[in-house]
């Protein structure tokens, strides 16, 4: 095997690249770049071999890129290409080297003239959806051949124009604020009403409890913020979204409404993106902090008596943290019990409520009308999310 030699330099510029080293999240761009490179190279091979349906076995493996160093002066990851043992060498102008130059040419051409080079394979333009998705306003990636002084400068705006040159939509990382007005559990999707539209959002299954709790009749649920990958049309309207994170929004979120696109607002004309929504803290953080405190209790915490809360109970509480933190019911207070359980308590204008989780995860629920004799109690063998939500919202039904 011959010595590896520099293949491409990706100079990353922007505020977050000012410090030594490279932000970890930017590593995904290297992976996406390699993927784009491979797809362009495959297309070039098939173009020059019209009779073939696919690339030969071992084709992709010929591209062995290694990140060996990050040079100083913004983040400058240098990708080196290793030769393969099978071949002993690689041609300096094989499909991968041509693909590298074509990608640079495509970026430069769109940046200067809004057109793709005629020899750029159109079928793979969509792979730019993955490359550059983490670019923030003010960020850029300069792709250049080693030894060259200048290369092609890739920004969020160039990426958008490049993608829209061959498609009616493109994808960005985005955050939306609004209210959940409909859930389609079968399709793992919900409709989010923002100030100016309703956006169909698909979500990961672990978000379901949160999504469900944020839905109330007549769109009266709490304001939420959802983040993920948004599909935008030519006028930058959100067509749909793949949601990977969700939390409750505060008033400021609602006022600033509705969309924060992780791209340069000076580049993208954002009809609905005038303000960047500040990042919301974890809505369940307060509940989890309280659970952390309970977790540190030792035997005898109650003046020499008192079992520490059972691990199973605390794990159950953590699972329910988002439900407990939801602003659609009165604030829930959390206390340990001397028997190794946990008591949840909350109050509204007329009633006192409590749920006592026992170490065996059974739950004793009590509701007291402090102004009358009305008293209700119920023992649950276990309390699932739905029952808990119902109790938090409507009390004990007997």
């Amino acid at each position, binding site marked *: 095997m011959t010595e590896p030699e520099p293949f491409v330099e990706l100079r990353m510029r922007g505020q977050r690249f000012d410090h030594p080293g490279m932000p970890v999240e930017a590593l995904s761009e290297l992976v996406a770049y390699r993927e784009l490179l491979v797809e362009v190279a495959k297309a070039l091979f098939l173009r020059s071999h019209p009779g073939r349906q696919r690339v030969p076995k071992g084709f992709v493996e010929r591209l062995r890129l290694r990140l060996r160093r990050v040079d100083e002066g913004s983040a400058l990851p240098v990708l080196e290409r290793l030769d393969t043992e099978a071949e002993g060498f690689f041609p300096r102008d094989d499909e991968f080297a041509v693909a590298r130059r074509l990608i640079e040419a495509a970026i430069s051409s769109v940046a200067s003239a809004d057109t793709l080079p005629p020899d750029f394979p159109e079928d793979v333009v969509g792979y730019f959806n993955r490359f550059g998705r983490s670019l923030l306003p003010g960020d850029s990636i300069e792709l250049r051949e080693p030894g060259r002084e200048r290369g092609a400068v890739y920004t969020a705006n160039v990426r958008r124009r490049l993608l829209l040159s061959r498609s009616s939509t493109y994808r960005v990382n985005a955050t939306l604020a609004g209210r959940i007005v409909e859930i389609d559990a079968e399709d793992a999707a919900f409709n989010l009403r923002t100030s100016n539209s309703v956006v169909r959002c698909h979500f990961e299954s672990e978000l379901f409890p949160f999504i469900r709790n944020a839905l109330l009749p007549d769109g009266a649920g709490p304001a939420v913020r959802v983040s993920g990958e948004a599909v935008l049309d030519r006028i930058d309207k959100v067509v749909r979204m793949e949601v990977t994170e969700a939390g409750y929004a505060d008033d400021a979120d609602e006022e600033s409404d509705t969309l924060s696109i992780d791209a340069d607002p000076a580049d993208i004309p954002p009809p609905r993106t005038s303000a960047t929504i500040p990042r919301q803290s974890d809505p369940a953080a307060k509940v989890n902090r*309280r659970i952390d405190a309970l977790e540190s209790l030792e035997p005898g915490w109650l003046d020499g008596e008192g079992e520490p809360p059972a691990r199973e109970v605390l794990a159950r509480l953590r699972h329910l943290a988002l439900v407990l933190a939801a602003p659609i019911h009165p604030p829930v207070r959390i206390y340990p019990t001397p028997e190794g359980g946990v008591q949840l308590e909350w*109050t509204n204008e007329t009633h*006192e409520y409590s749920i006592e989780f026992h170490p065996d995860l059974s739950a004793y629920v009590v509701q*007291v009308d402090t102004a009358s004799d009305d*008293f209700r109690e119920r023992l649950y063998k276990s309390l699932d999310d739905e029952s808990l939500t119902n109790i938090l919202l409507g009390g004990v039904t007997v």
Partner: protein
Amino acid sequence: MNQPGPSVRLDDDELLVEDSAEFVWRQVHPQFLSDGQPSSQAFKPTPKDEGKLSVIRQSVTAEEAFEQYEHSSAGTWSVRVGEVAEAGSRVVDDSAKPETPKAHAYIDFRGFTRGQVERIAKVLRSAANAHGCQYSPPTRTTIGG
């Protein structure tokens, strides 16, 4: 509310407290405080209490009650004797018994079912929370989520 009170007879050296306007003080363990509010657990007896929830009568101050308490406390909360009666229980002065703290009394939970105990504790918690903390030491911080 007028729930039936406990049927247990008082000892000869015990005295039923009848002034419904009088406050009695209750110490709240730091772990029974969350968001500045006491738990109803602070207003129900543990098994070692044998149905008698310790309180201190108003003849000592809320601060003195805190100072003479020998266990952990986040502060002194209060309920009125009349509120205890409304909840269906009673306040009994047992300060004449040997080795009993000054002005000691208890809220009587003897003879009640678990559900009744829960109901009384929650009514008392609600009343105490409405009165607010009567004394908390300046050097201590309340804990809780």
